[in-house]
C-alpha cells in the first residue's frame, strides 16, 4: 500500500450551482477546520470545545468551593455572583461539557465502530457542531455583559420571569439553551440515521459494539426529550418578551407546568449524560480484561430499559411539590424499578472482570473508578426513590452528593476512560501512563473527599444553592473538607491538560491497535485516514476484530461449542451484504465530499438571531418623546425591536437555502495497486503490530516517572515499529499531503 498508488481527483462539476457555490476540496489550515464536514474533525472540534468549557465550569466550581469553605463567609463573592456561579456551573457542565464530550465520541468513534465512511448527513453534522459552538459562546458571553444567568440550572418559574429576573440574564439562558437544543436534536437525528443505515455488512444490531448501542439509545432519548424543554423554553421566552402568561399564576398560568415540562426533559437528560460513558466503559472493560463482555445482550437491553424508563420517573424531582400521595407513591415505585436494570449493568461489568486478565492501564483505572462511584451514586439514588425520606433529602446537599457521584464519578470518569482509551486512535500517540495514573489518583481521592461528606451535610440539613450558612449549623468542618478535595480535583485536571499538551508535543507513537482491541476501529491506522476504511469491513460477529486475531478464543469456553453465538462465520451474512461492499476497484474510487461553508454560516445566522432576541430593545430604538407623540404601529415596533434578530434569522435561512443548492463536489480517491493487502491479511498484520506496541507500552511504563527517559524510550519504540505500520503511516501522511494539494 505505498503512497504512489493513491490518486486524488476532484469530482467533476455537474451543473450550474457548481459555479455559484463551489465546494471546498479539503483545504488545509484554518479554513479546512471551519468548512470541515469530516466526522473525525468535527469530533475533535467537539472535544476541544468541551474541554475548554470544562475549564470554565471547573473554575466556577472552585469559586463555589472557596465561597463555602467556612461558615458566614461573605468576603469572596457577592450573593448574586454566587448564584450566577452555580447556575453557570450546572448549565456549563451539563450542556457544554458532559453532553458534547459524549457527542465528540459519537462523532469520532461511532462511524468507525460500524465501519462507515462518515455519518449519514455530514453537513448537518457540521451544522450541529457550529450551533453548539455559537450556543455555548452565547450563554457564556453573558458574563461579559455582567448578566450571567442566576436563577439555577433548573430555572423554576416564576423566579425566571421578567419580574423576578429582570434584565437579559434570563434571556441569555433561554435563548442559549434553545440553540444548544437544536444542535442536540440535529446531531441525534444524524446518529440514528447513521447507525440504522450505515453499518458494515454483517453487522446486525446484536453485533454492534455496546458504545454504538448506547449512542443509538442516547440519540433516541435526545429526540424524545428535547422537544419538552424546547416547549417550556419557548413559553418562558414568550412570558419574558411578550408578557404571555404560561407560568404567571396571577393570570391563571401554572408555575408547576414548568417543573413538569422541565423534568420530562430533565430526567431523560441525566440518562443522556450517563448512557454514553456506560457504553465506553462497556467497551473498555472487556479489552483490559481480555475476555468478552459478560452478558452483552443484558447490557444492551438494560441500557434500552433505562432509557425507556427514564421517561416514567420525572416527578421524582418533584416529590415536594405537592402532587398527592398516589402520584408520589407511583413515581417512587417506577424510580425504584430503574434500580434493577442499573444493577444488572453493574453486575455484568463486575462479571466481565471475573476470571479475566486485568491490565491496569489508565483507561481501566477510570473504568473501575466509574463502577465503584456509579454504584455509590446508585445507592443514594435508591435512597431518593424512598419518597418518604426524600422530603428530607430533596434540595439538600444529599442530592448534590448524589448527582455529582453520578455525573463526575460516573459520567466524567467514564468519559476520561474513553479519552485515554481512544486518544491513540485519534492522534496516533499514547497519553502518558504515569501522568494518567497520577491524574486518576488525584481525581479519585479528590472527588471522594469532595463529595462523600456532602451526604452527611445533606442529612444534617444543609440546603442546596445557599450562598453561605450560619456557624450554628455546624456544617463548617465538612465543607472545609469538601473544599480541600476540590483542590485535589483541580490538580488532577491540571495534570490532565499538561498531559494532553505534552503528548501533543512529544507523545509516544502507537500502531493501529495499541490496546489489543476488539472492535473494527482498531483495524485501521491511527489516526484514521480521511476515508476511514479503505475497504468496508465484513463483520462476522460481535467483537469481530478480536475473533479474527484470536480465532481459537471463540471456542475456549466449552459451553459455546454448539451455539457459538459470538463467532458465526458462515451462516449469518445476509445475501445482500455481499453485493458491492465498498469495492474500490470501480472507476469512481472512494468519493469524499468537499467541505462546506454553509453549516457555519447558517449556525452563525441563527446564533446572531438569538443574540438579537436577547438584546431586543423594547423601545424599538425610539426615544420616549417620540413614542409619546406618535403612535407607532405594533408591527413596525416589533420589527424595530427585533431588527438584529431578523437579520440573523435571514442569514440563517439563506445559509440553509444555499446549503441545499450546493452541488455534490468533493473528490475521488483511487487506489491503483491491485494486489495490496486487504481483509484478513491486514488484520493479521495489525494484530502483530498491536501486540508489539502493547509490549513496548508495557516496557516503557516503569521508566515513565522520568520524562527524559521516557522520551528516549518512546523514540526507540517508534523506531522499532512494525514495517507495515510505517508504511501505513507513510501512506497516511502522503495522502494528507495530496488532499491538501
Amino acid at each position: 500500500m505505498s503512497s504512489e498508488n493513491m490518486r486524488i481527483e476532484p469530482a467533476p462539476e455537474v451543473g450550474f450551482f457548481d459555479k455559484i457555490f463551489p465546494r471546498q476540496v479539503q483545504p488545509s489550515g484554518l479554513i479546512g477546520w471551519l468548512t470541515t464536514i469530516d466526522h473525525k474533525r468535527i469530533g475533535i472540534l467537539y472535544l476541544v470545545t468541551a474541554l475548554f468549557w470544562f475549564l470554565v465550569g471547573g473554575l466556577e466550581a472552585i469559586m463555589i468551593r472557596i465561597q463555602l469553605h467556612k461558615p458566614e463567609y461573605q468576603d469572596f463573592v457577592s450573593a448574586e455572583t454566587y448564584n450566577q456561579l452555580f447556575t453557570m456551573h450546572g448549565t456549563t457542565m451539563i450542556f457544554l461539557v458532559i453532553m458534547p464530550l459524549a457527542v465528540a465520541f459519537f462523532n469520532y468513534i461511532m462511524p468507525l465502530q460500524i465501519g462507515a465512511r462518515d455519518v449519514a448527513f455530514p453537513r448537518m453534522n457540521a451544522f450541529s457542531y457550529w450551533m453548539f459552538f455559537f450556543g455555548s459562546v452565547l450563554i457564556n458571553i453573558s458574563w461579559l455583559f455582567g448578566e450571567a444567568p442566576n436563577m439555577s440550572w433548573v430555572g423554576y418559574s416564576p423566579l425566571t420571569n421578567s419580574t423576578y429576573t429582570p434584565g437579559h440574564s434570563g434571556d441569555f439562558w433561554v435563548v442559549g439553551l434553545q440553540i444548544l437544543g437544536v444542535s442536540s436534536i440535529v446531531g441525534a437525528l444524524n446518529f440514528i440515521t447513521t447507525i440504522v443505515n450505515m453499518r458494515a455488512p454483517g453487522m446486525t444490531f446484536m453485533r454492534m459494539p455496546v458504545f454504538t448501542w448506547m449512542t443509538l439509545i442516547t440519540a433516541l432519548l435526545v429526540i424524545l426529550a428535547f422537544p419538552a424543554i424546547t416547549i417550556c423554553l419557548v413559553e418562558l421566552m414568550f412570558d419574558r418578551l411578550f408578557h404571555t402568561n404560561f407560568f404567571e399564576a396571577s393570570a391563571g398560568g401554572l408555575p408547576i407546568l414548568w417543573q413538569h415540562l422541565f423534568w420530562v426533559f430533565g430526567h431523560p437528560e441525566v440518562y443522556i449524560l450517563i448512557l454514553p460513558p456506560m457504553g465506553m466503559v462497556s467497551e473498555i472493560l472487556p479489552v483490559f480484561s481480555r475476555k468478552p463482555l459478560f452478558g452483552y445482550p443484558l447490557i444492551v437491553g438494560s441500557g434500552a430499559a433505562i432509557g425507556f424508563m427514564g421517561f416514567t420517573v420525572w416527578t421524582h424531582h418533584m416529590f415536594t411539590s405537592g402532587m398527592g400521595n398516589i402520584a408520589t407513591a407511583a413515581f417512587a415505585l417506577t424510580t425504584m424499578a430503574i434500580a434493577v436494570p442499573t444493577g444488572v449493568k453493574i453486575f455484568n461489568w463486575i462479571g466481565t472482570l471475573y476470571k479475566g486478565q486485568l491490565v491496569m492501564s489508565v483507561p481501566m483505572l477510570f473504568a473501575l473508578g466509574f463502577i465503584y462511584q456509579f454504584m455509590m451514586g446508585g445507592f443514594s439514588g435508591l435512597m431518593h426513590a424512598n419518597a418518604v425520606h426524600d422530603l428530607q433529602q430533596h434540595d439538600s446537599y444529599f442530592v448534590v452528593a448524589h448527582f455529582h457521584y453520578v455525573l463526575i464519578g460516573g459520567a466524567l470518569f467514564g468519559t476520561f476512560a474513553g479519552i485515554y482509551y481512544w486518544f491513540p486512535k485519534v492522534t496516533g500517540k499514547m497519553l502518558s501512563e504515569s501522568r494518567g495514573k497520577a491524574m486518576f489518583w488525584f481525581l479519585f481521592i479528590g472527588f471522594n473527599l469532595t463529595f462523600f461528606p456532602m451526604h452527611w451535610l445533606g442529612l444534617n440539613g444543609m440546603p442546596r444553592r445557599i450562598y453561605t450558612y450560619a456557624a450554628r449549623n455546624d456544617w463548617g468542618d465538612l465543607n472545609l473538607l469538601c473544599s480541600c478535595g476540590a483542590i485535589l480535583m483541580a490538580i488532577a485536571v491540571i495534570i490532565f491538560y499538561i498531559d494532553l499538551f505534552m503528548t501533543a508535543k512529544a507523545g509516544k507513537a502507537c500502531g493501529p491497535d495499541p490496546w489489543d482491541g476488539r472492535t473494527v476501529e482498531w483495524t485501521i491506522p491511527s489516526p484514521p485516514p480521511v476515508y476511514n476504511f479503505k475497504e468496508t469491513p465484513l463483520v462476522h460477529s460481535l467483537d469481530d476484530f478480536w475473533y479474527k486475531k484470536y480465532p481459537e478464543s471463540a471456542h475456549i469456553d466449552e459451553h459455546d461449542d454448539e451455539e457459538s453465538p459470538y463467532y458465526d462465520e458462515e451462516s449469518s451474512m445476509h445475501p445482500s451484504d455481499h453485493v458491492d461492499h465498498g469495492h474500490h476497484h470501480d472507476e469512481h474510487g472512494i468519493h469524499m465530499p468537499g467541505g462546506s461553508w454553509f453549516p457555519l454560516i447558517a449556525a452563525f445566522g441563527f446564533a446572531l438571531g438569538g443574540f438579537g432576541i436577547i438584546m431586543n430593545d423594547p423601545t424599538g430604538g425610539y426615544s420616549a418623546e417620540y413614542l409619546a407623540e406618535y403612535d407607532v404601529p405594533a408591527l413596525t415596533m416589533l420589527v424595530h425591536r427585533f431588527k438584529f434578530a431578523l437579520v440573523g434569522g435571514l442569514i440563517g435561512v439563506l445559509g440553509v437555502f444555499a446549503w441545499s443548492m450546493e452541488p455534490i463536489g468533493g473528490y475521488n480517491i483511487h487506489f491503483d495497486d491491485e494486489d495490496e493487502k486487504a481483509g484478513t491479511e491486514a488484520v493479521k498484520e495489525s494484530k502483530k503490530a498491536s501486540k508489539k506496541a502493547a509490549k513496548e507500552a508495557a516496557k516503557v511504563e516503569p521508566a515513565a516517572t522520568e520524562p527524559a527517559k521516557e522520551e528516549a524510550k518512546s523514540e526507540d519504540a517508534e523506531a522499532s515499529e512494525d514495517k507495515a505500520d510505517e508504511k501505513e503511516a507513510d501512506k497516511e501522511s502522503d495522502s494528507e499531503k495530496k488532499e491538501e494539494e
Partner: protein
Amino acid sequence: MPKILRSLLAVMALMTVGCVDGVQSTLDPLGPVAARQMSTFMVTLWVSLGIFAVVGSFLVYCIAKFRYSGEVTPDTPLPEQGHGSAITEIALILISVGLVGVIALPTVQGVFWVGTEPENEEVMVIEVTGQQWWWKFDYPDLGVTCANEFAIPAGKPVRFNLKSADVQHSFWIPRLGGKMDLLPGQDNWLWLEADPALLAANNDQLSTADNKEGMRFEHLPDDYPFQGYVLYGQCAEFCGDSHAFMKFRCLVLDDTNWQKWVQWQKSDASSTLSPDEAKAGYKTFAKNKCGTCHLIRGTNARGIVGPDLTHIGSRTSIAAGWLENTPDNLGHWIQNPGEVKPGNIMWKTGYKRLDENGEVVANSQVEVDDSEKDILVKYLSSLK
C-alpha cells in the same frame, strides 16, 4: 455474614447517624413525621449497605485476584472466554427485584402515612406565606399573625397551609419532618408534630458532655418570656439572591406556655421605654416611613407588606432568622439592609442607594443616619 463485615456495617451505620446531629439534622427526629421518615430511610440505608458490602467486596476481590501484573504478549494465554451466564443473570435480577420490594413496601406505606392528616385528633392550622425573603405565619383560628418566628404546642399535630406571595419557596423544619414547596397559585400543605417524649429525651442529652455546646438542641433564651425549645427551619428551594438568608425559627412550647404565648401575641405592642422615649422612637420610625410596610399593633404603623414588628423586641432573631436579635445586628440591619440580605425589597424600594461611583441609582427617602439608627434600635428592642 462474617462477624467483621457485620461490625463494619454497624460502624458505618453509626457514622452515618453519628455525624448528623446538628440543629437541622434529618436523622435526629423530634416528631413522628421525621421519625417515620428516618425509619424508612434506615431500611433503604441497610439494604444499600448490604448490597454495597457484597457487591463492593466482590469488585475488590476481582480486582485483587485477577489483576495481571506481567506483560501481555502474543503468547500470553488468554483467560477463560466466558461471556455470561443466564442462571446468574436471572438470579441476580430476581434478588434485585426482591430487595427493591423490601424498600418499596415501607416507602408506599410511609408516603400515605406522611401525606395524610392524623385522624381523631384536633389539628391546628397555620397558614404559611413565603415571600422574598421572609415568612409570614397566620393562625386563622386564633387570630394571631407573626413573622419569621412562630410557636407550636408540643404534642399536637399542626397542619401548615403553604402559600407563596412571589416565587417558589420550600418550608422545612428538618427535625420535625420533610419539606413541602410553596408555589404561587397552588395550595400545598403538610402536617408536623413535635413529640414531647422525644423533646424530653433530647433535653436530657443536652446536658451530657459529648454534646457540642448549644449545637444539638436549644432552649429559649433566659430573658424570653416563656420556656420552650427552638427549632431551626430554612427555605429549601432556590428563590433568588438572598435564598440563603431566608430562615425561620419554630418555638415548641408546652401547654401552659403555649396558652400564654397566644395571649401575648394577640396583645398590642408595649414598649418597655418611658412614654416619652417610646414616642420619640415611634416618631423616627414614622419619619422614615417604616409604617408603610410594617405593622406595629397599637400604633399607626399599619403596613402589611413587610413583617409584623409588634413584638420584635422579644424575638430571638431578626432578618428572617439570619441574625441574632442584638442591638448591633439590628442597627446594621436597619442601616444596611442590602448588605445583610442582597436584593431585598426594603432596600430596593425604600432606601436611597448609590452605585460604585457614588451616584444615586434609586432615589427614595430613607437614609438612616447614626443617631436615627440608635433611636430606632432602642425603640424596636423595647417592643416586647
